[in-house]
């Protein structure tokens, strides 16, 4: 048996080695084609359009004019700042809420299997539907939150949370955190369950408290997952469209206008394709720079904690 395998192997391996490439390319070609037509080509086209004044009517090459106008506009920098503030705040909150949630769902109490299912609905349903629910709750006249605030005597009159600039912004943050919580919680929980029991037992034998074990074992062990979840979350939050659009459409008076919302308004609502494309390119450049910097950081964290 061994003899047969030995003599047959080299020839067979060689034959397969050659067709491996062709077969692999054949298998991935539909996916590549799809992405090329729906993502790569439009991306190139977006870059080209950003140098034109394209509208529905037609287009002329205008060079860097769109970018010059954009960078000279103080409003635009305000939007960039707001977008990063939106992203950092929402992602931090998601990570904190997710970490708390995962710790709770990881605790050895009866009913934990049920709790783990109950945390998922915001992820299962269409984002837009959940946000419609929140829009009702923020409603000033008979919304739940306004009602509760009055009940507890925190406010005198009804408050329309989406009507003033500051409260609209933070309301949108809360909804965004709500949308992102299930995914983050689930991944942290899975990571926590993957931590070796031996580590806990060793620490426990040495008399380490629960809090100490959490800080010195759980957190460092799941750090790679926290860091990669933070990146994914940051990209999603940066690009988050439906939440803001349904709640406020970027208002009141631009208080919740992030780069994505601004791009959509210029490009689609007003059909100023050229100017919109310039904004889209800025988004891509910012996100790519941020991601690369972050991956470099992730690499360092992984090395520091000795994972893989």
């Amino acid at each position, binding site marked *: 048996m061994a003899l047969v395998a030995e003599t047959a192997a080299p020839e067979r391996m060689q034959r397969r080695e050659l067709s491996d490439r062709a077969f692999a390319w054949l298998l991935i070609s539909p996916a590549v084609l799809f992405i090329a037509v*729906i993502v790569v080509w439009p991306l190139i086209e977006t870059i080209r359009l950003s140098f034109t004044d394209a509208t529905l009517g037609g287009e002329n090459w205008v060079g860097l004019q769109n970018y010059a106008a954009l960078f000279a506009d103080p409003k635009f920098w305000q939007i960039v700042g707001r977008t990063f503030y939106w992203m950092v705040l929402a992602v931090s909150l998601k990570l904190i809420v997710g970490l708390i949630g995962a710790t709770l769902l990881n605790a050895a109490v009866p009913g934990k299997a049920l709790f783990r299912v109950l945390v998922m609905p915001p992820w299962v349903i*269409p984002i837009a539907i959940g946000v419609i629910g929140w829009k009702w709750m923020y409603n000033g006249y008979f919304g739940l939150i306004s*009602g509760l605030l009055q009940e507890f005597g925190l406010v005198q009159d009804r408050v329309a949370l989406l009507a003033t600039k500051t409260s609209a912004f933070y309301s949108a943050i809360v909804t965004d955190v709500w949308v992102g919580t299930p995914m983050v919680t689930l991944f942290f929980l899975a990571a926590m369950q993957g931590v070796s029991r031996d580590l806990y037992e060793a620490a426990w034998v040495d008399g380490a408290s629960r809090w100490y074990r959490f800080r010195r074992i759980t957190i460092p062990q799941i750090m790679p997952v926290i860091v990669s979840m933070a990146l994914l979350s940051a990209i999603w939050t940066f*690009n988050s469209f439906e939440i803001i659009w349904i709640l406020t459409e970027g208002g009141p008076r631009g208080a919740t206008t992030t780069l994505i919302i601004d791009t959509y308004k210029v490009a689609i609502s007003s059909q100023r394709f050229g100017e919109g494309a310039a904004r889209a390119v800025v988004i891509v450049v910012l996100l790519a720079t941020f991601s690369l910097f972050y991956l470099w950081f992730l690499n360092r964290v992984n090395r520091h904690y000795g994972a893989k």
Partner: protein
Amino acid sequence: MQIEKLSLLQKIGVYIATFFFLLFVLMPFIEMIRVSLRPMSHLMTADFTWWSEDFSLQAYRDMWVTVPLLGRYIFNSIFIATSVTALTMVVVVPAAYAYARLEFPFKTLSLGGFLAVNMFTGAVLLIPLYRVLRTLSMLNTYWAIIIPGVAFLIPTGIWLLRSYLEKIPRELEEAAFVDGASRLYTLRRVVIPLAVPGLIVVGTAVFIGAYAQQFLFAITFNNVREIQPLPAGLYEFIGYQDVTWNEMMAAALTGITPVMLVFLFLQKYLVAGLTAGAVKE
């Protein structure tokens, strides 16, 4: 195990904290149910109260009149999500197999390229997509929502299914090869049947993704009411001055029932499958 044991006080603490955590997560649902059961007149006039005497299912009857196309919206949502899932899987299965099993040039680079697609949500590419779809006369058709939907689910699908396929023992394929089976035959008759549980997990994840992401493409590429999916259909009503909120909530809850059922049936596999990549082997 001894180490995990919590004292009674600690247990109570965990339950109270879990209660507040789940309250945050489920609040909109509780509130949507509460609102859907109350007559509109009471929602508008009475001061805020938790409980009321006049709970009724009236809104669940009236919603079909107020939103005449509700049934159509729900059908569209399911139809679009199903089409997107079917198309995505047809593209994803062979690609995931290639990444799981074969060595080829630019393997890592192309996989990275796929994952980078996640960085561009549709919003960034809407302008050229709009023009492409217009050129292909796909605007205001189901295709306008389905085609972009597929593209943005392919990367995640490949990623999830690849890690599943890697766990299937190679020996079975080797055996088929030795018996002289062709590569395509092996993929069809050996690998795919073995991968059924993984296909279900990835298929469900893709379905939920497809169900969740319809809004942006629908409001941008389509303005025909008859083919609008549920979120876009309802959004139109939210924009009006007089929103009959109780009926909107009843409609929203009715509309999400199918996807919730799919989730409940498959949640056990889904949760395990989705997080497999996050856990160290």
